[in-house]
């Protein structure tokens, strides 16, 4: 079988394009959406905590977290559609159990350290979520641990050095950062 260099170039371009499309299809079925959804939730929740009366801000957080949980479940189910592996079903269940246990440990830690103010509560939740993110990164994709490390560092800087604008700091850098990262991952793939 003989083909011209031009045909070879066309075939290689078609292969490259298909591989990129496949990677994007797999990733766009979920991963980056988690970042965008939770980025928007953090942005709105922390802005509410900064500018709204405390009782309204607390209810806002509760509603946003429930919404985030529902959307995450939908995204998680969609991620399993289309591509499967023998280990994906059991590892999916283990990951779900891990997050549920982490949530319970977070609640237990808050209960032990109670009373805590709004900023301390936020930091507890941020730190536990980032531990979960790091665990997922170490398990699934090592490079994805760096955003979690950076967000944790930003949260600690805001908590200790900028307590007056902590919520605003987390809304813009934490929430906004996750949205930008999600959009970046989508465009890069």
């Amino acid at each position, binding site marked *: *079988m003989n*083909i*011209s*260099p031009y045909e*070879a*170039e066309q*075939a*290689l371009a*078609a*292969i490259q394009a*298909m*591989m990129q*499309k*496949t*990677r994007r*299809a*797999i990733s766009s079925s979920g991963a980056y959406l988690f970042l965008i959804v939770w980025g928007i939730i953090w942005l709105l929740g922390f802005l509410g905590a900064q500018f709204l009366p405390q009782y309204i801000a607390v209810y806002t957080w509760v509603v946003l977290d429930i919404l985030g949980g529902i959307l995450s479940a939908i995204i998680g189910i969609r991620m399993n*559609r*289309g*591509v*499967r*592996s*023998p*280990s*994906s079903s059991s590892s999916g269940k283990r990951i779900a159990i891990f997050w549920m246990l982490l949530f319970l440990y977070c609640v237990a830690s808050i209960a032990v350290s109670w009373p805590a103010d709004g900023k301390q509560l936020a930091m507890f939740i941020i730190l536990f979520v980032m531990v979960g993110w790091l665990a997922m990164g170490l398990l699934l994709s090592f490079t994805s641990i760096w955003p979690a490390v950076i967000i944790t560092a930003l949260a600690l800087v805001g908590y200790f050095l900028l307590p007056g604008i902590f919520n605003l700091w987390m809304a813009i850098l934490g929430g906004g950062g996750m949205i930008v990262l999600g959009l970046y991952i989508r465009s890069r793939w």
Partner: protein
Amino acid sequence: MAELNETIHQPVRLRIMAALVTLGPNEEVDFTYLRDLLGVTDGNLGAHLRKLEEAGYIAVNKTFVERKPRTYVAATAEGRKVFAEHVVALESILRSK
């Protein structure tokens, strides 16, 4: 020197193999997901998959998920090997330009 593979070089089959080798070694893709990814019809995809299956380059797994019939497709080790050789052959043609 690696040689071009006539079975794989057909444009649709080339894209099918490119999509399948992008998945992990133990992963398989749903027929309808692959059809939408490639933008081809059921019949067209089915015909090309049969050719690739006959050549031993892909494995077709018909199963039931929640009582609904589903067909999953994956590249075999042989399929991955010949696809990689095909890509090397294409690259060598390009280099000899």
